[in-house]
């Protein structure tokens, strides 16, 4: 079946199978930043933004995204660069596998929440697991990022 996705502001007609998940279709479309971790919507590594909301692309049927806007790191370069630099400064990145999903969730949070508390930040980022960092550096970077944006 044929669907139309707007990926990072670019309309794409894609041939898909009915049970194909969005992650696989994005890969077919040449989007390389999105990673797959658990494959069961638990780790947040495959996060993309669907109409601005973070979702697990490994567990979202591509056909459901027909006619909708998908954003990956490639579509938010400036914002990703801003928070990415802070992550580097705070020593928040080691292997980097979780970073694209983490950044997208942080960017969605910045757009959605106004002046969030530390607890609200932690709660919003709960679904993004990182097996390297221990989260302290990430929290420092995200807090700075949220302050800069106010």
């Amino acid at each position: 079946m044929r669907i139309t996705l707007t990926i990072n502001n670019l309309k794409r007609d894609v041939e898909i199978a009915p049970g194909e998940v969005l992650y696989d279709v994005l890969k077919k479309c040449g989007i390389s930043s999105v990673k797959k971790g658990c494959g069961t919507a638990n780790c947040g590594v495959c996060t993309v933004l669907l109409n601005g909301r973070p979702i697990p692309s490994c567990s979202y049927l591509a056909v459901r995204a027909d006619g909708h806007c998908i954003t990956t790191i490639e579509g938010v370069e400036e914002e990703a660069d801003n928070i990415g630099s802070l992550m580097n400064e705070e020593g928040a990145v080691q292997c980097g596998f979780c970073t694209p999903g983490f950044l997208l969730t942080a960017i969605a949070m910045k757009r959605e929440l106004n002046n969030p508390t530390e607890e609200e930040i932690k709660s919003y980022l709960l679904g993004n697991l990182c097996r390297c960092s221990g989260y302290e550096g990430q929290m420092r970077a995200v807090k700075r990022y949220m302050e800069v944006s106010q």
Partner: protein
Amino acid sequence: MKIKEYVKPVSIEAANELCSKGAVVLGGGAFLNLGDKAIETAIDLCDLEMDFVVEDEKQVEIGAMATLRDIEKSAILQKNFCGILSKAAASIMGVQVRNIATIGGSVYGKYGFSDLLTVLLALDAEIELFNAGRMNLQSFLDREPEKDILLKIILKKNVSRASFTCMRKTETDFSVLNTAMAIVEGQLRLAVGARPGKARLAKGAMGYFSPADYSTKAAAALALLAAEELHFGSDIRASEEYRKELCKTMVKRCAMEVLA
């Protein structure tokens, strides 16, 4: 999960016709990759405007396709029922999953681990099915599975106090146990879920206890009664014995919050 054909019906009647022929209604799809089930025809209700949360003077209605995030952020649900439905939704997994998982999927699936079922049972929720019509949630949970389509969940505004608590090994895991308590039209309702079986009312304890007779001692007695009358089981998360002990503490805490 393997899906051979995907259909977005334009009406609930069309969805029901497909359903009667064996098609499967999709919820949020959060558990798509947790099984290897083969589905001939999957029905997606996403175009049928069933993601509402609305209220009038007497009740709140929640469409089956409302996501857990919709429920978490709904001003209507934050201000009604002491906010426990919103609170329970907010504690489920990460924001990514809550943006896709639906309340209809949780309720129709009768999942043992569901936090929302426990809360809805304590709040004396009713549901509306396309074919079977309106019934209370307890009746739905007790009846044998039948092909139908869940349309909405109805909550009457007759709850004066309510509390929800859950225990997890990690923040994004399923609950080891969850408890919800509410005073509905002056009567106490107590539900315990993730036992690991689906949520149940502790009817014996509910009958024994009058909200007017509250004391710390009475709360402990209520918790003990609930732990004795409900059945608990063992699974990868906890043993039967551990759940029973947890139940005593969690029910007591709920009682102290609701009744004190």
